[in-house]
């Protein structure tokens, strides 16, 4: 079922769009579905993908948007607002957003939303984050879409590109996914006999600080690694340009799990899912619950089946580190700034 739904997703999306024209007049007269949107760092391409999908499917939807602005305390207040409003579905962006809304497995039902379907997106590893009981079915009132390629697959792509013997990693220790990703990376790197040097720009209280990024990069560069890896990190995404330019300035070719780092910034490469397509796939999950009448526990948590290898040639030229010629055959080349 899981692979079937992935494979047919785009076809279904197109069919839904086609049906929309005939369905809309009837649906327009019905009461709109109410979706509470819980953002972690404002509006993203994922949110846009979700809205576009549901619009093309002809679903009348009334959105209520809540932005936590990367503040966990704000999430607690949002949860209470949503509980009072009783929407049909809650959509939550990122691991932090989803954990803040649905809580971890066995979390307090008073503090978290457990009796309204929660659909998350852009969560890297929901099982490690203890957001779900298991995969692909969550075992609770939660489902959603994973936006990342598995760490082992990313490591394989990174190795083909840089053949590293020493790899630098910059992550946010305050983020659940970041900690899990580094633990997983240690395993695959050890198996491949690659030395890892890990840094997190967090202060003594464990909070990430922008001004600590530079010193962290300096320490990493001093170890003369072959490349720098940036796991998916919500904290870094708004800092894509600054962070990746700082890495290039220190002669670090960067591989990122997040698309904006390569498209907007100067990360040299990455294996990524399009955030917009992740949003569309999330819209499909929401539709299965609202129109299909399924419980979130019956809807599998999935990733898109295809990932794109992005190569930023401007960064490559600046660093004089070039991709293998065969990689250029299948990679999406970005000419960059």
């Amino acid at each position: 079922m899981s692979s079937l739904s992935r494979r047919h997703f785009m076809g279904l999306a197109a069919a839904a769009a086609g049906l929309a024209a005939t369905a809309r007049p009837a649906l327009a007269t019905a009461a709109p579905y109410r979706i509470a949107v819980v953002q972690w760092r404002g509006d993203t391409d994922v949110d846009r993908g979700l809205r576009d999908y549901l619009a093309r499917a002809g679903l009348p939807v009334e959105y209520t948007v809540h932005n936590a602005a990367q503040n966990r305390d704000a999430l607690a207040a949002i949860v209470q607002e949503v509980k009072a409003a009783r929407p049909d579905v809650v959509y939550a962006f990122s691991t932090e957003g989803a954990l803040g809304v649905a809580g971890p497995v066995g979390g307090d039902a008073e503090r978290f939303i457990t009796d309204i379907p929660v659909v998350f997106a852009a969560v890297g590893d929901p099982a490690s984050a203890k957001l779900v009981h298991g995969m692909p079915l969550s075992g609770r009132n939660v489902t959603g879409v994973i936006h990342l390629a598995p760490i082992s697959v990313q490591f394989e792509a990174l190795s083909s590109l840089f053949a590293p013997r020493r790899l630098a990693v910059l992550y946010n220790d305050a983020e659940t996914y970041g900690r899990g990703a580094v633990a997983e990376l240690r395993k695959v790197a050890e198996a491949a006999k690659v030395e890892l040097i890990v840094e997190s720009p967090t202060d003594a209280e464990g909070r990430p600080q922008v001004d600590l990024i530079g010193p962290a990069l300096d320490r990493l560069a001093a170890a003369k690694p072959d490349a720098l890896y940036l796991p998916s990190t919500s904290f870094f995404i708004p800092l894509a340009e600054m962070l990746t330019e700082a890495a290039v300035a220190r002669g670090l070719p960067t591989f990122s799990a997040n698309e904006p780092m390569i498209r907007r910034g100067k990360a040299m490469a990455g294996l990524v899912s399009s955030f917009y397509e992740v949003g569309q796939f999330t819209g499909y999950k929401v539709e299965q619950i609202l129109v299909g009448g399924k419980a979130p526990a019956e809807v599998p948590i999935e990733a898109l089946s295809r990932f794109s290898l992005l190569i930023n040639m401007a960064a490559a030229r600046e660093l004089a580190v070039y991709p293998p010629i065969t990689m250029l055959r299948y990679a999406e080349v970005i000419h960059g700034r």
Partner: protein
Amino acid sequence: MNATTAAVTRLKVRVVTLALLVILSAAALVSIPVANRQFEDLPVELAAKHVTLVSQLGRDIARAVDLGIPVAQLRGLEDMFAAARAAHPEVGYLTFIDADGTPRAGHGGTPPDTLLARVPLTTPGHPPRLVEVEHFHALRLPVIGRDGAALGDIHLGIDRSHVARLIQDRVFDIITVMVVTAIIATELLLLLLDSMVTAPLLGLQRWAEDTRARRGATQAAQQGRGELAAFVRQLTGLSGLVHGAPPQDAPSVPWLIMLRYVRVALFVFVAADTLSLSFLPLFSRELMSPLWGLSEDVLVGLPIVAYWLMSAVVQLPGARLLEHMTHRRAFVVGALLSAAGSVASALSSDMASLLLARAVSGIGLGLVFMVCQAAILTHVPPERRTYGVATFTGVFFLATFSGTAVGGIAAEHLGFRSTFLLSAGVALTACAFAVLTFGASREAHRPAAQAAEGWAAYGKLAVNPRYAGLLLLAALPNRMFNVALVFFLAPLYLDMLGASKAEIGRIVGVYGLTMAFAAPIIAAWVDRRGWQVQSVVVGSILCGLGGFAVVPFDNQWGILIAVALMGLGQSMSIPSQMTLIPVVAARNAAVLGLPRLYAVFRVGERVPAFLGPIIAGVLVSLLGYGAAIATYGVWVAASSVLLIFVFGASRSKTA
């Protein structure tokens, strides 16, 4: 063999030899210049393909340079060349030399730069310019950047030994077509000679004998077609006027003529049925769809398993059918089922429908197989049965060889589905031929078993030591070794030894060709001496000994010897097994009827034969290929020795 038959046989040998000489000479006259031209044309033909390959590689280099990668820092060229060579095994080397003359990357046994420098440049859009460098046909193409600047040259060498192998394969294809043409021409000529010359002459001989016995003309003289037959009919008609009307108990078609009819019908049918043999796995792969949770590797082989399994399973119910039908009608049913299966195969849209279609064709094959064997046993006198069965076995393999070869060519030109339709058409031709030639008379109808069969009768058959010995110690080990070696061990082992697909096909094909040509010759000799038991034992031992060939010759020659000895051994063993069945189980035959005896025998040897490759797989994992083949050989040879004791013991008990 009487004087008339001997004279006709001499005539047939001369006519067929002469005709084949003319046909093959003419074919050789046309083919030899074609084959010769291959040596000049093929390298250039291949080079055109390689120009495309090098142009693609050049475009990749030019794009990388256009993206800002300096030529000196191009990464992964070796990997790119290695992948290109893996996809084109005939490419001996690939090298990129930049505009400054510096070799940047190479893969394969590249000749020295000094030799490469002499290779002329092939400019895009012009015919390839090939020169011979060491043992390569060398080619050189420029790599041009987007701004028109020369970035360097890519050198490619086509391995001359690979080209020679390709030419050899093409020559073998030509020879195969010539051999198939010769086989078909021979079958047609012999059919014409037998129906237009042998049959009237045998009739005339019979008339002469009858006249001498003052019995008058008989319907025997009415046999045959053409001018000579008409003349004979007029002559015997005259005799009728003198001696009165012919008697009503007219004898049937002479057995030699009936054997010819059965042979031709079987040849055409089997050739039709095997047209799809060479491409069936490819067709299965095209229709691949999930079924019963089976893996793709298992599914690909399933249509052919369904086909052979059904051809074996249908034997028991088929035996009952034969008791109620004439041979002609049973052949028609079988051929129509086969044709229907082929049409259904052509129309099949998924794996399930293809499986069903092949199973229907398998039922058709099983029925036709039974009918032809039964017709031979009915018409051929007991003292010539081994020869009759050997003719049957031989024609089966000749037709399989011809059908497979023609099917491959047809599939290449018409496509898989059209070849299935062609197969149905040819099967219907066999059907029409059988309708015209197989008698519908009482004699062509097998008598039913004298008593109703029951489990007790089958039980008695199972404890008949000589029947059971023949089945379990000769037929079964031979069949299992045959399926294991020819369909499993030999192809896989040869592949592991580095043989090409064409070489594997040729080596494995030796089995069928040996059976086709050796079986009738050996059988005639065995019939003359009545050495059926000895033939079964010696043939099986020979087959088993073949398994040992891989011990001293752990290479392609070892497999070739094993396959050839299996062909020779089974040419001796299989026809004699068939002849011995009514002899060793005469009392059982009186109760169950001969068709059931044969059906039980065939089911008993063929259904477990599917275990052959499975046991072989286990042996290979434990012992390796060579020892697995030798172990099978030991089993077959040891079983034959046991068979001697079984026959000896039961004979002394009878005495």
